[in-house]
């Protein structure tokens, strides 16, 4: 039959099914294939907190959303064009996210009586039969049956055969978007190298799904999303947590320091530990500690010994590390703390995203305890900012917070990765050996940046004691002198403030001083804000946008930028935190736009916020 090739600019596909259905793997495979094909893309995995949540239920639905296009893509997409639903619960949970007249690909075997009951569908109300899907293009087929059919000859048992069904769907979607399946064939070869029977089964089913789509009479349309016009260069696909780990490794390599990572497993930060543990040939020491406190304390010990030391966690773990953060700050030694934020407070929403730990990072310690705070804006920006965190920590002898969040940590995008020679140098200077008749070593003497020296054990003549008690401004000995304490509190604050001289200036990402309104974002809201501002520009509404990545201290020129605008809107995935800092530091009448639902902003939500503010 004749097939129409429909050309599209951007498409959003949502794969959804039971958390045991292999949805994340399917999604990641499609994302990698999409990246290799040359589309720009952004992904958003959304999974339940439970490892194997109750099968068939709405709570157990795992999703993977991918937005890809021939034009720049900055978010995983608001609503999707295609919903792949492996069972009734997946359809019911996600139908509202599908665009009008969108496409639904349905596995009918996931709509039997039991699945319908588990999804809470009333008897006789099977959405596949009750005409409720009439506004959509629905493609139904029995994936389980087709998978079993294609594996008639396989020596595998039924359970193992059924586990291949995600490959059927993947093959099917590859065909829909006119793709080659080679990248996934290669992936399977590596993944199942030691299990030839499983490799064969998955390969057969992947091909079966592809051919089924090709020969099945119901499909007359095939879509094509042409490669995006991205800046020239060499690209790869990267996930946020992976990029963070690579940034840390790169910084250690460039600074010629050993990387030490002390941490405790926590969602959604654990993948940083996993990624680092893979690259031990870089001399990376990963230490899975007994708890969060031990994770940071071991890192402090390693830093005292001269390693580039890092710990990572999420909100609850960071709360536990608070006291040790104060110690690192008193010791004035380099330390990088990554907070992959998730929904809080308390255990909160472990697998969902939020930006609600900003004030915790800025203020969450006893005493006057300023620590530099920086934030990444996208999966690949995690690399840049992890590298920056290390640079600031080492060159300014201070703990540094890097904030990312579950959204960008698990999301993926194409990355025009740098060459190692393009990376900024990181200057490390250790205090040098002293002879018996040299002047006594003064551990808290500061240079022009107000930075003290890093004196490693093992260096002759530098024997000295440090600790959490207030120290004398030069000798570092314990001091309870009133004048000295005030001096030390102020000098520690001034040292952090001075970092502003060593970070990039703030720039407008779009718009100009003449724009009607300035949107100020920080961290992972970048993509959604950029998408909106571009859309509005096309519609003739001139909006300025700036994204703050250096939060403590803020860039020196930020105040000047803010002063040019009458209307400032601050969208955040929290109840208003950056806005407090901005109002406090610059006395501007900024307005908040908050979303606290555990999911990222949709572009349309920010658009609505901007348009409402413009009306006022």
């Amino acid at each position: 039959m004749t097939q129409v090739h429909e050309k599209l600019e951007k498409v959003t596909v949502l794969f959804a099914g039971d958390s045991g259905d292999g949805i994340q793997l399917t999604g990641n495979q499609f994302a990698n294939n999409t990246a290799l094909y040359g589309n720009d893309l952004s992904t958003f995995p959304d999974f339940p907190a439970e490892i194997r949540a109750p099968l068939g239920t709405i709570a157990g639905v795992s999703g993977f959303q991918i937005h890809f296009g021939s034009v720049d893509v900055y978010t995983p997409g608001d609503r999707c064009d295609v919903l792949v639903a492996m069972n009734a619960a997946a359809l019911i949970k996600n139908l509202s996210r599908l665009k009008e007249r969108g496409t639904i690909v349905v596995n009918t075997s996931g709509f039997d009586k039991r699945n319908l009951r588990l999804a809470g569908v009333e008897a006789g109300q099977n959405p596949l039969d009750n005409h409720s899907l009439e506004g959509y293009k629905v493609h139904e087929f029995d994936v389980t049956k087709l998978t079993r059919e294609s594996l008639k000859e396989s020596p595998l048992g039924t359970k193992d055969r059924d586990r291949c069904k995600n490959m059927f769907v993947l093959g099917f979607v590859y065909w829909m978007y006119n793709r080659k399946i080679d990248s996934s064939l290669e992936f399977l070869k590596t993944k199942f190298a030691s299990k030839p029977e499983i490799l064969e089964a998955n390969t057969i089913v992947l091909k079966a799904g592809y051919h089924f789509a090709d020969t099945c009479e119901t499909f007359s349309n095939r879509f094509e999303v042409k490669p995006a016009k991205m800046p020239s260069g060499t690209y790869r696909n990267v996930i946020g947590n992976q990029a963070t780990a690579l940034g840390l490794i790169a910084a250690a390599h460039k600074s010629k320091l050993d990387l030490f990572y002390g941490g405790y497993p926590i969602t959604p930060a654990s993948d940083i530990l996993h990624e680092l543990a893979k690259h031990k040939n870089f001399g990376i020491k990963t230490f899975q500690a007994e708890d969060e406190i031990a994770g940071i304390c071991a890192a402090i010990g390693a830093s005292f010994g001269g390693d580039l030391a890092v710990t990572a966690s999420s909100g609850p773990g960071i709360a536990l590390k608070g006291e040790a953060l104060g110690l690192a700050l008193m010791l004035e030694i380099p330390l990088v703390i990554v907070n992959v934020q998730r929904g809080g407070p308390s255990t909160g929403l472990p697998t969902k995203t939020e930006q609600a730990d900003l004030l915790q990072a800025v203020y969450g310690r006893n005493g006057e305890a300023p620590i530099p705070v920086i934030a990444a804006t996208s999966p690949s920006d995690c690399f840049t900012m992890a590298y920056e965190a290390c640079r600031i920590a080492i060159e300014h002898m201070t703990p540094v917070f890097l904030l990312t969040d579950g959204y960008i940590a698990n999301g993926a995008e194409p990355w025009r990765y740098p060459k190692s020679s393009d990376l900024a140098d990181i200057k490390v200077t250790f205090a040098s050996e002293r002879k018996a008749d040299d002047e006594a070593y003064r551990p808290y003497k500061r240079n022009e940046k107000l930075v003290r020296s890093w004196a490693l054990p093992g260096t002759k003549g530098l024997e000295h004691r440090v600790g959490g008690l207030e120290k004398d401004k030069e000798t570092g000995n314990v001091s309870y002198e009133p004048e000295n304490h005030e001096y030390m509190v102020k000098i520690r604050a001034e040292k952090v403030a001075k970092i502003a001289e060593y970070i990039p200036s703030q720039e407008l990402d779009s718009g100009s001083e003449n724009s009607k309104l300035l949107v100020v974002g920080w961290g992972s809201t970048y993509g959604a804000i950029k998408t909106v501002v571009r859309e509005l520009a096309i519609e003739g509404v001139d909006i300025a946008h700036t994204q703050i990545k250096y939060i403590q201290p803020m860039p020196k020129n930020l105040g000047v930028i803010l002063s040019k605008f009458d209307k400032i809107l601050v969208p955040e995935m929290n109840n208003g935190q950056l806005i407090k800092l901005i109002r406090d530091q610059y006395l501007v009448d900024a307005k908040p736009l908050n979303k606290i639902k555990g999911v990222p902003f949709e572009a349309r939500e920010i658009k609505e916020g901007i348009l409402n503010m413009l009306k006022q």
Partner: protein
Amino acid sequence: MAEAKDIQEEVQKLTAKDFVSDQDIRWCPGCGDYSILKQVQSVMPELGIPREDIVFISGIGCSSRFPYYMNTFGMHSIHGRATAIASGLKAARPDLSVWLITGDGDSLSIGGNHLIHLLRRNFNLNILLFNNQIYGLTKGQYSPTSEVGKKTKSTPMGSIDHPFNPLALCMGAESTFVARALDREPKHLRNILMRAEQHQGTSLIEIYQNCNIFNDGAFGGFTDKQTKKDNSLYLEHGQPLVFGVKEDKGVILDGFEPRIVDLTSGEYAKEDLWIHDEKCRNKANILTRFFDDPSNEGALPRPFGIFYQEDRFRYEEALYEQLDTLKKLEGDPNLDKLLAGSNTWEVE
């Protein structure tokens, strides 16, 4: 070579004085900490380690002021966490001689978790656990080693916390070197310190230390001239368990039960007694259970010395072995290759 020789000569010239820092000591007059500090300072020159390679790390509490008084590298950290900090330091710098100073509150209460995990990992470092059975720095609350019924400011009706038996706890945590010493037995303490440094792995020494302000005489039974010989049992590898003023009492192992026997009646000779074997885990476990109140009739004597010593792999060695293995397998690190990953594409 010449350089190594110079270092050796210089180290040989070190005396206890070289390990005294310029800081005034702020412990209460008469505190048991003074004696321990003095023994540590006098042992240091005998270790043959350059001063700059020695690090003292402590938590919080009276004893944790210790690093300030040692002219070595030192860190006075936060409550209970010296154990975790020392672990990280040792992982980063296996070349250093690391000494951890902690107390019963610091390492058995707030830092209990890190202590047990350090012991099982067996980093090669030395822990001096000053046990005075009281919170001194916070002015006299009961500690996790205080006896039941202890009356303090926080327990006016007497403590109802059953105390830890610290050495039994350490045995349970897979410790490879378990010893007990006393602030008032300096020579014995020095020997134990030397043995601790020689042990390759985590050495734990519980040191009974008298707090003369808030818990004076807590260990009187083991230090007073009149009673100490009847209440204390000094362990020596390969030697029978003999104690008493006139060395007139011994311990035999009757099945799993230790029993005190009289060596003067003629029924038992030294040859019949339990012979101490540092390498025997089962016997060490029983020895740590010699934990009776010495004032009780028929109480087993409290052992001092090395209960147990075992050679087991050190965490930091295994860590570096893994790094070396991977380096051999994958070759020198190539950052450009790492950043590129396995799938790339060109955009013109």
